[in-house]
């Protein structure tokens, strides 16, 4: 039994395959968007500052969207992330204003609260077997109740929110702020986990066919538990960052991110590794949506323009992916 032909990996690594619109269509969409807005708003859009604004403004969206990569790959929805993000942010603000605890302890507390929320999700979805869509919706509502309870429905403000704590959001390297770097680090870790470890492969297997994965010895319950803990902790990270960015604890800050995060993660799943939720595809999706939205605001588009743009790009990407797959099925025979 000699080692057979192993030349085939080259097929996947050929640059033109990698750069095909089927693989990274969003890159071409991004180029089109950049060209369109550079022509439309030649004085403001094509500038290095615009790039920085886009990155800095979308880092939190990126982190919260990345938080969904692992659970969605494992076949579970986490609809509580927006509320967990809000909870982490309000816990941060509350502790900063009402206690003298050092900042690292406060950040750690916010993340522990998030982890606890993830543990509740896991107990509901994995142990009790409640459908993740409903289970995390319910736990999200409870997180919202906690947010209202802590904040008393008012923004928490105080001096300590503006001091050293704000560095989390402000400190920068060449105009690129810490949250952007954090997003890239999170993406890199998730990329390594999903693409370069056995655990990542097993997570995908669990999401695609949990029964087949289980019968192949994959501990699907354990992986789904871990995936829900991951999303909660990353949502907590996003909450801490947003709290530092706005320098106040607002009770309304997390939940609006939920739909955007799902749209971005699903758009990301049409890129690079079509059909799989993946880190760099998600980052690419954040850039496409963020660039379009920044451009629209620079040309003074109406308020509904942003949502319209997000919706069209998401539906367009999903439709194109579906059509490609249909063509592949009709042209290829067993």
């Amino acid at each position, binding site marked *: 039994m000699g080692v057979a032909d192993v030349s085939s990996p080259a097929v996947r690594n050929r640059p033109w395959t990698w750069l095909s619109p089927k693989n990274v269509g969003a890159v071409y969409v991004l180029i089109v968007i950049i060209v369109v807005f550079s022509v439309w708003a030649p004085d403001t859009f094509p500038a290095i500052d615009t790039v920085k604004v886009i990155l800095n403004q979308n880092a939190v969206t990126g982190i919260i969207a990345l938080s969904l990569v692992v659970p969605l790959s494992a076949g579970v929805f986490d609809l509580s992330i927006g509320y967990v993000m809000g909870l982490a942010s309000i816990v941060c603000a509350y502790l900063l204003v009402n206690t003298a605890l050092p900042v690292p302890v406060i950040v750690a507390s916010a993340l522990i609260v998030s982890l606890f929320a993830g543990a509740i999700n896991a107990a509901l979805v994995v142990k009790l077997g409640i459908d993740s869509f409903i289970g995390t919706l319910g736990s999200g509502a409870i997180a919202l109740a906690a947010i209202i309870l802590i904040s008393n429905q008012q923004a928490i403000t105080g001096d300590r929110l503006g001091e050293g704590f704000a560095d989390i959001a402000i400190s920068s390297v060449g105009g690129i702020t810490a949250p952007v770097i954090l997003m890239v680090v999170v993406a890199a870790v998730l990329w390594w986990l999903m693409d*370069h470890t*056995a*655990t990542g492969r097993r997570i995908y297997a669990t999401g695609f066919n949990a029964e087949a994965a289980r019968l*192949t010895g994959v501990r699907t319950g354990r992986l789904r538990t871990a995936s829900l803990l991951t999303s909660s902790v990353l949502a907590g990270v996003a909450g801490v960052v947003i709290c530092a960015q706005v320098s106040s604890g607002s009770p309304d800050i997390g939940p609006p991110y939920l739909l955007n995060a799902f749209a971005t993660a699903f758009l990301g799943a049409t890129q690079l590794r079509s059909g799989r939720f993946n880190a760099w595809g998600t980052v690419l999706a954040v850039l496409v949506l963020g660039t379009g939205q920044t451009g629209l605001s620079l040309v003074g588009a109406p308020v509904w323009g942003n949502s319209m743009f997000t919706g069209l790009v998401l539906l367009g990407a999903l439709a194109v992916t579906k059509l490609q797959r249909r063509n592949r099925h009709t042209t290829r025979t067993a």
Partner: protein
Amino acid sequence: MAAVATEVAGARNPLFTVEDASITFPGVKAVDGVSLDLYENEVHALLGANGCGKSTLIKILAGFHQPDDGLRATFDGSEIDLATVEQQRDHPLRFVHQDLGLVNELSATDNIALGLGFLGSGVRVDWKAENQRARGLLARFGVHLDPRRPLSEATAVDRTLLAVARALGGLGDAKHVLVLDEPTAALSSTEVERLFEAVRELRDAGSAVLYVSHRMDEIFEIADRVTVMRSGRVISSGPIGAMTPALLTSLIAGEPTEAEAPAKTSSRRPTSSARHTEAALAVRGLRSQSIRGVDFEVRRGEIVGVAGLFGSGREAVGYAVAGALSDAAGHWEINGASFDRLTVSDAIDAGLGFVPADRAAEGLISEFTVLENLSLAALSDLGSSARLSRRAEREQASAWLSSVGVRADAIDVPVTTLSGGNQQKIVFGRWLWRRPAVLVLCEPTAGVDIGARHALHELLREQAAAGLAVLITTSDIDDLVEVCDRVLVMRNGVVERELTGAAIATPTILAATEADSLPTRP
């Protein structure tokens, strides 16, 4: 004999005929020039071993499969098109498939409405009329259940009768053909009797019934005529009076030609002295919903088969052995490790490999490539937990691909683009890669063409010769005859008989599983 046949044919014309039905799947002619006549007031039994083509024939009749050219079908003297006949109002061919097609969470009324269309105006369902219709249909078959309660509360035979009632709903007294595909597989003997009464009533009222079954004793009780299929062809067709159980068994099994029978036996099994005697797998007191206490062991190098009808426990025993059933209890010994509770991952860690019955739903990850499917069980051995060595994965996968006989350039294609046989080779390869001590296979050659079937059998023989302990649970008698050293025959949740040596032949296995499958009725 000939005179009688002429007389019958002269007396009446067949209600439904199909001539020259054939269908070719890649690599195999599943149904080959089959003709069938059905008469009014008659129950016509269709018999044959698993894989003989009778299910495929039913699917052709139901318009589900597009047959090869040349098929002609007539109903009541005029030609019909099987592909479109079901779209007609009051179409004359009615089917009750083996799974009944009922939604157990819904009520009888709902199930009937789902099949026959809802009553009432376009915007409002007339529930009073619905319930009335359901009661009427059920009463006709002697079923007394509240049509508003969920079907999960009803008995198996009530559900079967409901499916029959629904299939015939809306026909009134019109001429029709009723096809029952293995309707008794899930029924107890008293329940079977109730179903038979209903079938006889239908027959006496004019139905032409095509009755597909595995159980031979039933045929003599219910059928007026019988057709036997083997290898896609009709082997024999005639009145039941001219048949005996022994004759039917030999027709179903096929008489082995003298040239091939002894050769097969001698090539198949190693001499017992060459085999190891150590047990790699032992189960004691194994129980689950459909298994009522099973003990056996499989030694290294031995291939043990489990035969039995659907419902005998045969279909569950592989899953129970592999720890895949949450309600299974008993004692397991796998490759030296003992368990009183077993999960699949524990079993696999102990050195067991498991090939489940449903390749698409339980075996393969269809979104994965061939490579990813092949390596799924072996990932722990490739690199470290922090880094999967994709180079090692690819090299070893290529080697395993060629050793199970799949071309190496298929490594990166989606696994669903492979043929059924090659897909099954991937599932085999996935486990062989781990070099397990025990391999448990359920229906290992289901949906696999002839060539791949031989290759898979050969692979199992090779692996067993190298010391692997193999357990095969199958409804395909060929699997048992071709590779097994020992066959356990299950009935009613227990191992009834054990066959060895020359007893592992189609007629004996058929007789053990089917001929006396039902307890004698009072």
